[in-house]
């Protein structure tokens, strides 16, 4: 039996790429110095979806909500094996908290054909809330299995998975359709495939297609024809704004978000006094002596 999978992915600032260069003198982080990247945990989700497709057949559709430049992670998903990609982008979707985000995603998912499985990463590395997965599941009225390490069985509309718990782990069975959130050590995400990269680096959204034609001074009334050609070659990234969806605008973006940020404080992670010791027997000896004398060792 073939399964239709959806992967929910997010483009995030790469906080793991924090180097001294991205730090300001006062110890805070310069966000704009960080590259935008495929949220790490979401690559594990994509990998698990691709493995299901390889084992059972079916399709993998990747959806992201974000600014126009988020199409980059959709191309990356295509390089790795995704069949179809969808960008949800609209100013009215912006500044959404997890409730508004999960609402928007769930409306888009309902517009697609029936799905069997939805894969999410455990959490996004910028917010670390781990809330959107369970909230999308609730909005779609399907069960969720969070913190999944492994799918041990998938047959006849039933899935069995190992998930982490506070005490250890449990093996859970659920009928399809359902939503899974995947932990980072579940698998090793595959790198982009060279052949697919060559092919799909030309994939683009209609907006990107239009601006490319404009750059090349082609007539804009050709955009539709150009998109049609892209679509035939499987190179069109679907792009949906609010008009493309049967969506209640007051449940999207900032206006659909019950949580508001009152205040942001930069964290200054700086130590107090700092002493350096040379990496020699004497240097190490001095350090240990000092720590013994002030009873740091106990």
């Amino acid at each position, binding site marked *: 039996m073939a399964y239709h999978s959806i992967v929910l992915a997010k483009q995030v600032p790469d906080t793991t790429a924090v180097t001294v260069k991205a730090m300001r003198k006062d110890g805070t982080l310069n966000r704009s110095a960080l590259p935008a990247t495929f949220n790490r945990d979401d690559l594990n989700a994509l990998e698990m979806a691709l493995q299901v497709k390889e084992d059972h057949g079916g399709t993998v559709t990747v959806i992201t909500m974000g600014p126009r430049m988020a199409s980059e992670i959709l191309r990356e998903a295509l390089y790795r094996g995704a069949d179809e990609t969808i960008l949800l982008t609209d100013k009215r979707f912006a500044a959404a908290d997890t409730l508004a985000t999960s609402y928007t995603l769930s409306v888009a998912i309902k517009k697609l054909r029936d799905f069997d499985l939805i894969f999410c990463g455990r959490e996004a*590395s910028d917010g*670390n*809330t781990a*809330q959107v997965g369970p909230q999308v599941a609730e909005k779609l009225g399907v069960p969720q299995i969070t913190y999944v390490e492994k799918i041990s069985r998938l047959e006849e509309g039933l899935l069995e998975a190992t998930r982490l718990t506070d005490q250890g782990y449990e093996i859970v069975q659920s009928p399809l359709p359902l939503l899974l959130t995947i932990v980072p050590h579940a698998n090793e995400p595959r790198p982009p495939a060279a052949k697919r990269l060559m092919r799909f680096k030309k994939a683009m959204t209609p907006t990107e297609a239009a601006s490319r034609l404009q750059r090349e001074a082609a007539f804009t009334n050709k955009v539709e024809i150009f998109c049609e050609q892209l679509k035939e070659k499987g190179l069109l990234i679907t792009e949906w704004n609010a008009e493309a969806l049967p969506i209640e605008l007051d449940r999207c973006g900032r206006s659909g978000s*019950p949580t508001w940020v009152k205040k*942001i404080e930069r964290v200054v992670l700086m*130590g107090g006094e700092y002493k350096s010791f040379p*990496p020699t027997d004497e240097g190490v*000896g001095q350090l240990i002596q000092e720590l013994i004398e002030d009873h740091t060792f106990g």
Partner: protein
Amino acid sequence: MKREVWVFVQRENNKIAEISLELLGKGRDLADKLDAVLAAIIIGKKAHELASPLIAHGADRIYLAQHEQLDSYTTLPYTRVLVNLISRFKPEIFLLGATALGRDLAPRVASYLKVGITADCTELKIDHYTEPLSKERYKNILMQIRPAFGGNIIATIVNPKTRPQMATVREGVMSALPPDATRKGEVINLGPELAEEDFKVQVVERKAVEKRVDLKTAGIIVAGGAGVKSRENFQLIFKLASCLGAAVGASRAAVDGGLIHHDHQIGQTGSTVRPRLYIACGISGAVQHRAGMSESKKIIAINPDSEAPIFEIAHYGIVGDLTEIIPKIITAYRAKNSGGKSGKLLPR
């Protein structure tokens, strides 16, 4: 009628999880500020056995949702019980632990109720809030304070318009009250409503794995990062830890690199620790890691790169190769700790 502050009680083998007692400690403080009732919600088969200790730890009221089928946690039935209770009693605030269970349950409940929720709070306060654009003033609402963006910023979040104001709270950051057996409270037994369709997800096996490490109570932690480079080198970390009577920690890079099990992970997505001594070996000091250990009383950083961010928060630094430095530390510690003193073992 008095307003209510609710705490979800998580059970571990029919004992109250530590996080729930910590939430009651903070909940008591919030309820007193609001002149509200502090209620603990407990779902399970023999939930009533836990009522007295919950009252002793600060609860005024216990809501018991007892049912044979609710003995062990699964998402859908627990969600249904909670959303029904919340719709009925309309609490002002609802707190859960940011545990695997809490982070599975809380967002689903919030989504159903269409209310705001803040994950992984490290501080909660009651304060007034004026919306900057409309100038609308909200009195006595919950300030939900949490690190975000890999621990780089601390955000104060409010959700003044929806009730309950929901938040999950990180383990180990709030303090439980000492139990007071003379405290009085009322116990309300509720017949939880169940739906057969919620039991379509079944747990076929449940296994407790003893935590290999208890980082939270460790006085000394020796932690390794990507700079440790190999599993063999990580043995050096274990060797130093055993010499000092320390626990072994790791950065995410070391865990993701397969050098060590994820139970050891410290940082934004692992444990938050505050030992009296933290020895960071081959850890560059990504903000995510620093967010989990920067409150250690003393930090020693060992790294070949003198520019590594870890040195910015370290109290002591040794720039060099950890495979050379760690054996030197072990030698120096053994020599000095046994040599000069009376020879008796120090208690740890």
